[in-house]
């Protein structure tokens, strides 16, 4: 059995979803209530591979909301993730993907030190961040989009924004080793990490964001910024491909200009309908088939009986592991989401 630990985008989103599902107590309540709300297993999922194999899973709503972090409710946020993981384990779920903020909170607040949750010792091997599959899919999306929009990678500049993150660094490794990219532009905040990455890759140009963007034919955005920054859309190249690797996928709405092609990064589409309800609440274009690649990773691991934390920790994703998960992704009927 596989599991997905997810959460909603904001308090207002959560209230709307709760109302649509008929959970009045949750719909009517404010952030303080959500800080106390326990995780719930709210959906049963059946996925059929194109091989004919069928697996079952569960969606665990952690009741975490991003506002918990922005309002300083860090303890509540950490509790949500640990309690959701404990619930997944209690349900006997063999491999669970930590979606959205879940894995970031686990890693950044070092929750590994708190593995005892009430009467449960968390078994980390039961959980995966799903980042390997996400990184693989983002790379595939970049390559396909270049073909689609007539950009020759061997003459193109690719900027990876957030290059030193878990996914960013994996994307850089893939681009370095598997693609004949003309110029790889590395953008991140931490200069030391950037230099280490550049050293490991044996290539790449370290640039500040504002210098990298106008030079890039492809922008792979898997990062955060500490403050709002003005982006001059007119200064971006034409054509220019933007892979939106964050969550929620909202760059397509904001970055609109002829010749600018924004793709929802790290999203996959399954060849067959998935039997589930929760996806209709997560604002994806085709809820029966589209999902986050990190979620799909737990399905792939379940299909293969690989009940192990395939993606865990920071900067451990190798090109070989990306290829491995990529092959499984194709085998079972997933493909990267691309514009129509």
């Amino acid at each position, binding site marked *: 059995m596989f599991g997905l630990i997810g959460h909603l985008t904001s308090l207002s989103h959560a209230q709307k979803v709760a109302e649509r599902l008929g959970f009045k107590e949750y719909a009517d309540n404010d952030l303080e209530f959500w*800080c106390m709300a*326990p995780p719930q297993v709210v959906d049963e999922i059946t996925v059929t591979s194109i091989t004919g194999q069928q697996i079952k899973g569960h969606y665990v709503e952690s009741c975490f909301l991003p506002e918990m972090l*922005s309002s300083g409710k860090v303890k509540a946020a950490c509790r949500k993730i640990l309690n959701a993981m404990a619930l997944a384990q209690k349900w006997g779920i063999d491999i669970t993907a930590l979606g959205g903020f879940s894995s970031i909170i686990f890693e950044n607040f070092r929750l590994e030190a708190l593995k005892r949750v009430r009467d449960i010792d968390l078994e980390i091997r039961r959980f995966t961040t799903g980042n390997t599959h996400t990184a693989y899919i983002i790379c595939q999306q970049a390559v396909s989009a270049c073909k689609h929009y007539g950009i020759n990678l061997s003459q193109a500049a690719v900027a990876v924004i957030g290059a030193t993150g878990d996914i960013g660094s994996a994307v850089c490794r893939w681009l370095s080793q598997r693609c004949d990219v003309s110029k790889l532009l590395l953008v991140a905040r931490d200069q030391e990490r950037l230099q280490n990455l550049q050293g490991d890759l044996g290539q790449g140009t370290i640039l500040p964001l504002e210098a990298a963007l106008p030079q890039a034919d492809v922008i792979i955005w898997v990062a955060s910024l500490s403050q709002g920054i*003005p982006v001059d859309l007119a200064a971006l190249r034409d054509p220019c491909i933007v892979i939106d690797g*964050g969550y929620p996928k909202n760059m397509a709405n904001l970055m609109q200009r002829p010749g600018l092609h924004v793709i929802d990064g790290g999203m996959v589409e399954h060849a067959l309908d998935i039997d589930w309800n929760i996806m209709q609440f997560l604002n994806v274009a085709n809820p029966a088939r589209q999902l986050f690649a990190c979620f799909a990773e737990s399905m792939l691991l379940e299909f293969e009986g690989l009940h192990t934390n395939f993606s865990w920790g920071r900067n451990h994703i190798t090109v070989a592991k990306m290829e491995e998960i990529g092959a499984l992704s194709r085998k079972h009927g997933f493909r990267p989401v691309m514009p129509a």
Partner: protein
Amino acid sequence: MVTLEMLASLANLGGSLRGDPKSSYPTGSTRLHKIPHGSPMITLQETTAAPQSLDYQSSAYRDAYARINAIVIEGEVEASDNYLRLAELVPDAAEELRKLARMEQKHMKGFQACAKNLNVEPDMPFAKAFFQELHNNFQRAAAAGDLTTCFVIQSLLIECFAIAAYNIYIPVADPFARKITEGVVKDEYLHLNFGEMWLQQRFPEVKAGIEQANATNLPLIWKMLNQVDKDVEVLGMDREAIVEDFMIAYGEALSKIGFSTRDVMRLSAQGLRAA
């Protein structure tokens, strides 16, 4: 020109953790809120792993402890009395119920020792008053032979409340009390299980009764918790965490008994908003 505020929520988190009063969650309509995959954006200024430094000998701590410890002792007394009363009402399970009562008495003695260890006199009159309403409801139900309500009050509400409070207390307890509480909480799970099984075996006939007992008595639990809000904080416990832990234990129990997830979410949150 468009302003991209990528990952505004996490960005602001950095500010808020540093105590930056200017940081707040973005309300602008065109801002982008981004969650990066694997971003190091969160500043590690605070972690739940850090043990809180509590002065167990301070007068503030011991003052709060006098009430909380008394509640715990009285809770165990109530539990023991309730199980003995249930043993009279359910002869088939009398032996098992008397065994549970004996365990609760043992717990009570353990918690009395915790008070002695900190040289604290438990405020028993406060604790008696604290439990009065719930106590009366149990007695009324027992007198009327309403076993469902009796089991909901004792085996679900009191046991889950105890489990939640003990779980949250253990990491911040003084070493002596921690050891005792760790032993107690294991027993309380067993007690919860007894009530769950009893109600589960009769689910169709007791379902409506459980809902009724829940509607009457769960709001009392929230009210009781509110009364000791400040004391709980002085002991280093987090009220939100207690409520969440309670809802987890109580929700699991309701689910085992036979309620659907939808029912569990409704029942376990009942009255919380008004509290």
